């Protein structure tokens, strides 16, 4: 499967990659995006099976990316890994069609719990 990791922080993209590996998902193809616009463009161009996105990014927020994808009829599995977690954000994410919401800092156990049902 192909996974797109969208985060403006290079450090956090690296940590997400490492945590995916620690959680046993290291064999999947990984693609990275460094801002919201790149996340949207690469999701359309690369057709990943899963998008793991930050919330607060330059150019476009993660939830705006998700809304644009859904408005265009794209139903890729999409969810958030973010340091920000308020009830209003979680509601906005769910309403936009998000499949999961992981709060930073996170552990490999949390990734396993969330991604096992998605990635098998």
């Amino acid at each position, binding site marked *: 499967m192909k996974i797109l990791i969208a985060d*403006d*922080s*290079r*450090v*956090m993209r*690296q*940590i997400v990659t*490492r945590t995916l590996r620690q959680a046993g998902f290291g064999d999947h193809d990984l693609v990275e995006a460094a801002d919201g616009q790149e996340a949207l463009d690469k999701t359309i161009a690369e057709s990943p099976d899963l998008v793991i996105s930050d919330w*607060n990014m*330059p150019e476009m927020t993660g939830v705006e990316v998700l809304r644009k994808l859904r408005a265009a009829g794209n139903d890729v599995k999409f969810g958030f890994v*973010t*340091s*920000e*977690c*308020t*009830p*209003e954000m979680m509601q906005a994410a769910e309403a936009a069609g998000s499949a999961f919401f992981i*709060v*930073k*800092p*996170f*552990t490999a156990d949390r990734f396993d719990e969330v991604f096992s049902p998605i990635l098998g």
Partner: protein
Amino acid sequence: MSVEVLVSADDLTEMVDQVWLSYLDPEGIDPLVATGDEKQPTEVHAMVSITGSWHGHLVYASSTAAARKAAAGFLAMTVDEVGEEDVTDVLGELANIVGGNVKAMLPDGCFLSLPTVIMAPESASHHPSAHRISGLYGQWAGEPVSISMWQSVKPEAGK
């Protein structure tokens, strides 16, 4: 003047403990130890601003050695391999993670800025019309690390 402390030093400690356990000290043998020394010198710092229903800043500050050690931990490198960009990126991420967790404790309707990193002591940055409402001051392997919250004074209160 009484100030409602929405996020206490204990809250900050809890958040920082999670960051340490997740990324910097997974085995729980090298924690950030609180000292309460507000005057400890720092050499680098990063901050995120919060606006909306609450206005202020979250500042993460440390020595250069502690910043390099944090970068090594986050990026799974040795300290010798760490470059300046690694340090700035990790400092920004530390401020972002703690700032995001802080935001969750504030009233609805807050916005978090992208982080700003300053490779200079915390004293190099001034926060006009803001005052510190809480802070965690400690040492990590003998190096100073602090996380502090600054609340902007409401405009009407300054008149």
